[in-house]
């Protein structure tokens, strides 16, 4: 079993929809959780970063962590075509390694 599991999609939504991207993890030692956005032929860009459980909001993006169920989510409100990208979730136990999901491909249709 991988440390972080992510549905690869692809996910296709109309412009303006609310998008929900989800990951599960297996290691209860994970303390920090990240979401990265990766456009085609570019490196991953850090989007959101949360510590432990709870919600964090940044504009149209909300990251949510539920440590009791080992579930992490990213919500995108009022989705735009420019949000079309691959989204990677990641977890970190404050050691030297980070653990990534395989990514979910999102297309927002105008």
């Amino acid at each position, binding site marked *: 079993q991988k440390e972080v599991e992510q549905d*690869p999609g692809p996910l296709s939504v109309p412009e303006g929809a609310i998008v929900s991207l989800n990951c599960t993890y297996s290691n209860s030692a994970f303390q*920090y959780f*990240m979401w*990265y956005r990766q456009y085609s*032929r*570019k*490196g*991953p*860009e*850090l989007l959101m*970063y949360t510590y432990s459980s709870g919600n964090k909001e940044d504009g149209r993006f909300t990251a949510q962590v539920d440590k009791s169920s080992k579930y992490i989510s990213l919500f995108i409100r009022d989705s735009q075509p420019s949000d079309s990208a691959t989204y*990677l979730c*990641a977890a*970190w136990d*404050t050691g*030297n*390694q*980070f653990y*990534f*999901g*395989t*990514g979910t491909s999102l297309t927002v249709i105008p």
Partner: protein
Amino acid sequence: DVKVTQSSRYLVKRTGEKVFLECVQDMDHENMFWYRQDPGLGLRLIYFSYDVKMKEKGDIPEGYSVSREKKERFSLILESASTNQTSMYLCASSPNQPQHFGDGTRLSIL
């Protein structure tokens, strides 16, 4: 803003060649990482370094080596390139917080 620069965006080499991929970061981060990214497999850690002249093997170190002579520079070396090393290579740096990535080198081995 953190800047992680990879020396080449695209590289084509021949089987058996020794290949050098260079990465430089400008934020004085202790930790640097090399990943490869393949469709369906996500990010796989090759090597990481937490200090100058220090290196640790990741999940798939076979066929690779690294060099970190200066804090800001981390090099990945393919000792004798093979076709199964055709991939997207991503460098990242981290000050014990979420990683920041470069834009990647798309390497093709013919």
